[in-house]
């Protein structure tokens, strides 16, 4: 059985990558299972300077979904490079998820990580000065601009642009990333939502709103992955609500070359190794010997 996938020249042992923000830098889950069994780890969102994040509560639950508003708490890129990078690279593929407040922040952090990690994934869903406090990921012209700038700062490491679903057209934004020079796109980032404590008449999250993820968003994510994958010629990494091997198969049929798993790690601490195993089982049961064979095999009605 061949489970390995190659994206932008980077070979992943299997197509299941831990999604940013749910797995830290891999150390904690490595206490539960060998983290080298995951295809890769997309790191906790990194910024040039350390960030302390939002007030608590930072997490809430809806039906089959969760909401988070952590606010990019992270130790800063230098601490990551010093303390975690070599260890994590010795275990698995490292996708550095990066964010910033200004365009210069994005450019700077990409330049700093160039050649040090396997891929760089731009989080363009956080509020940005350039977009007047709105996320850079909303308007296609902003997506293209930040992508072009980051691509210009990278000589060695492939650039993944992580698309926000809170947009007018996912296909147009996918094309904007491609036009800006992205080597790959990943989607979907979380949908913006709210949960209300009706007894207190207040939102549960201190931040009032947060990013919705988990099984409940999967149909939306699948549709968007399908649309984006058919709008661009660069590879696509799909995510949004994956909890089992069959979900991986669905995302790959819709056009994803690899997937990311986030919220499921909270429901089942061993989610990723289980999902890898289940994917393999589904392929075997269907007489398929190479996971790459199912990519983009969806036939519309």
């Amino acid at each position: 059985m061949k489970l390995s996938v190659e994206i932008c020249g980077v070979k992943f042992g299997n197509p299941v990558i831990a999604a940013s923000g749910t797995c830290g830098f891999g150390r904690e889950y490595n206490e539960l299972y060998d983290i080298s069994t995951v295809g890769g780890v997309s790191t906790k969102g990194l910024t040039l300077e350390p960030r302390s994040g939002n007030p608590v509560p930072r997490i809430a639950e809806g039906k089959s979904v969760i909401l988070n508003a952590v606010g990019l708490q992270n130790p800063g890129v230098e601490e990551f490079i010093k303390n975690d990078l070599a260890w994590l690279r010795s275990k698995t593929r490292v996708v550095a998820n990066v964010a910033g407040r200004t365009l210069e922040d994005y450019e700077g952090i990409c330049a700093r990580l160039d050649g040090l990690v396997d891929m760089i994934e731009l989080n363009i869903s956080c509020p940005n000065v350039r977009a007047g406090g709105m996320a850079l990921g909303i308007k296609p012209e902003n997506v293209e601009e930040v992508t072009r700038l980051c691509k210009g700062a990278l000589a060695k490491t492939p650039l993944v642009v992580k698309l926000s679903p809170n947009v007018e057209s996912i296909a147009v934004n996918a094309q904007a990333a491609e036009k800006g020079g992205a080597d790959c796109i990943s989607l979907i980032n979380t949908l913006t939502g709210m949960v209300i404590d009706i007894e207190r008449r207040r939102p549960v999250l201190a931040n009032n709103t947060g990013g919705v993820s988990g099984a409940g968003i999967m149909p939306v994510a699948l549709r968007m992955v399908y649309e984006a994958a058919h709008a661009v010629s660069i590879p696509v990494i799909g995510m949004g609500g994956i909890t089992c091997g069959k979900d991986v198969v669905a995302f790959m049929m819709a056009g994803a070359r690899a997937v990311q798993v986030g919220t499921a790690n909270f429901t089942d601490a061993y989610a990723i190794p289980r999902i890898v195993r289940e994917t393999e089982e589904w392929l075997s049961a269907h007489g398929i010997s190479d996971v790459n064979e199912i990519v983009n095999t969806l036939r519309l009605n």
Partner: protein
Amino acid sequence: MKELLATVKENRQIAEGIMAITLALPESVGKIKGGQFANLSVGDSAFPLKRPLGVCSVNGNDVTLCYQLKGDGTRKIAQAEAGDKLSVLLPLGNGFDLGNAKKVAVIGGGVGVFPLAAVVEEYAGKVQFYSYIGFRGRQYACLTEVFGNVGELTVVTDDGSLGAKGNAVQAFADDLGKISPDLIISCGPPVMLRALRSALKDNGVTAKCLVSLEERMGCGIGACLVCACKKSDGRNARVCKDGPVFDINEVEL
């Protein structure tokens, strides 16, 4: 630390709105320290988050967790019956380390008594405990016998329906001259912990005080940075991994 599919042995109400669930673990998870917690699955995919619940008691591979019926998730857990299977991740967090303390004051408020019960059971006979436990009223009182069995116990209630009318911090402060503890451990609502910090300061108590904090959590193992608390040096700590037990002077309450 492991995630296991545990079998529910018993799930019963121990006070109004308070339940105790005993889980039979299929294998050992190693030593579980008092003050550590477990992340318990609700057992329904509509609830993606596990519930972080304090370990109240450990007996071989049987673990009892206590919880307050608070929302839909805990109400769902309350429906679990003997024989049902629930996934549980444990043991989590640092727990209370009593070190070489000989005389320990225990101050618990409401559902904060759960982790403290496991501590006094763990150190029973090795340490002299002086427990001050407060509840809103008699109907909410639980686990008092655990504290009574291992040392001196003072129970108070907000309405005076059980023990004296008052709060646990005040009852402890009134006894300070008599007991002179070399360690204080506490768990309860933030308002209680703040009152405790003030009481220690006002009475010039220099003994170390350890408190267990509560926060909404994601992963429970320190990866997701959801359950942050502020250290007094301004840095963040993870309640689930660096805590939930902190020195009272080390964290913002």
